[in-house]
């Protein structure tokens, strides 16, 4: 979110327990107006007031992009995380008022593709749900391969299968079903684009296999949001605003700046988009660069930091905010 970008005041209209781990939330505008349409793959940042702590988590939109009556997201409960997903699961009820960002797409379809080949792991299914709805409406060719732990934990698997039939392929780990990736990547027509969303290991596996099989890097797309990791508290000097702040163990540096009244730009809050990139004036210690944005050289030089996910340990960190 750029500072000053518009936000959408919403009310929660539906909370559905999809399975043991996942809840689905529906939001509609408080003023009754239409939501903006969006492109499949987009996310919104959901603002939460968790008993005085302001949390802002990105979630992929999974409702049909053409449905302007409301937005839907799915949230997987993370019992050891910082609490954003737990807050959504335990406190968010129908009727509650919340605030969303406008949709932002860091995982767009390449509309030139002759065919879209999608690989989802677990909760990574959500952006594909919206993308398939959009492709279906536009007459695009697609195929989904969706891997999950068990039928009980496979959110939306049966719904998607019923709706899209043989364009959807399901794989259950517990039943020892695995995606035969090499065979899958072998027979695709020139101009196919490959998309993967799921756990880190799955993304790495799909990317490495595609490279090995001769797929160009520009034909392979992935999205992985990082939850800001928890860690030890640390202190940061903000040079531009002349403040010294403390980042709590379950808080990100970005959140700590916001809590201290220092506005910083952001879009994804998950280390992927680059919007919050900040100059480091001085680093006497070690930065844990947890993002996907900075290059290895930039990380090694400690001249920049991504405050949404990265942390620090050491004597002094001075940044340009």
């Amino acid at each position, binding site marked *: 979110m750029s500072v000053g970008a518009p936000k959408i005041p919403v009310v929660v209209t539906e909370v559905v327990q999809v399975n043991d781990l996942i809840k689905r939330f529906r939001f509609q505008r408080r003023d009754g107006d239409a939501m903006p349409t969006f492109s499949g793959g987009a996310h919104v940042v959901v603002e939460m007031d968790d008993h005085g702590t302001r949390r802002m988590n990105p979630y992929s939109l999974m409702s049909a992009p053409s449905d302007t009556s409301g937005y839907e997201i799915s949230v997987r409960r993370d019992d050891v995380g910082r609490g954003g997903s737990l807050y959504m699961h335990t406190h968010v009820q129908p009727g509650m008022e919340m605030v969303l960002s406008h949709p932002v797409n860091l995982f767009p379809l390449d509309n*030139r*593709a*002759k065919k879209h080949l999608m690989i989802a792991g677990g909760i990574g299914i959500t952006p594909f749900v919206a993308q398939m709805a959009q492709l279906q409406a536009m007459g695009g060719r697609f195929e989904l391969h969706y891997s999950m732990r068990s039928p009980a934990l496979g959110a939306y698997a049966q719904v998607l299968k019923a709706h899209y039939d043989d364009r959807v392929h399901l794989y259950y780990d517990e039943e020892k079903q695995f995606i035969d990736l090499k065979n899958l*990547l*072998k*027979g*695709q*027509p*020139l*101009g*196919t684009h*490959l998309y993967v969303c799921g756990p880190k290991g799955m993304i790495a596996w799909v990317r490495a296999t595609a*490279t*090995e*099989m*001769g*797929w*160009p*890097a*520009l*034909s392979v797309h992935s999205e992985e949001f990082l939850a800001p990791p928890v860690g030890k508290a640390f202190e940061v000097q903000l040079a531009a605003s002349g403040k010294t702040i403390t980042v709590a163990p379950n808080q990100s540096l970005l959140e700590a700046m916001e809590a201290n009244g220092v506005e910083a730009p952001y879009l994804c809050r998950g280390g992927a988009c680059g919007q919050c990139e900040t100059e480091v004036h001085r680093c006497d210690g070690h930065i844990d660069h947890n993002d996907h944005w900075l290059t290895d050289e930039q990380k090694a030089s400690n001249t920049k930091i991504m405050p949404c996910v990265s942390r620090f340990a050491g004597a002094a960190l001075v940044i340009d905010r």
Partner: protein
Amino acid sequence: MTKTEFEPSIKSRPVYGVLEAAPGLAHLIVADGEGADAVTEMIARAGTAMLASTHIIYMPGPNGCDKSAALQALGAAQFRSSPSFAAASSRLAKVVADAHMGTQIYVAGTEGLIAQVCQAVAAQGLPYESVHTEHRGSTVRRVQCVHCKGITENVTHDPFKCSHCGLSLFVRDHFSRRIAAFQGVNIDAEDPGLVPDSVERFK
């Protein structure tokens, strides 16, 4: 003879690399003129195993350089010697349309050839930048007249007369991948008849 070194230029002007074999299920190689050397050198480095899944399309360069015998002798699974790009283009289009992901595509030779192969590949949806390229041989240019839209092949002089509309054009480095040509713009539009001496810039 090694790859051609060009002067640094504006950002739309293509830059070329050195052909290096990459892992792939199949390999399509297109070359003209001295580009044949880049192909034989690549195979010499990579080993001959890839030849069993390689298709080579070759044509003489605009300067007449013809090394088809050397390429044919490599023993690729498929080899075609064509008299010109125009003669080869329908075969190229068919091969690209039938190809699958995992096919590596290589082009070596003159800029006109590289541009037209990349154009044909991109038309089938493979990213333009994923084609492996190396420039060898003649530096003559393929230039589109921005006024009449006609393309003049093998331009050696700057300025030159458009082979279609006859206007005197200066050759810019501005390059369109979609059209596979440099841009030619009328040099004496403001002062008709005042055309600077033509210089041989591209050989």
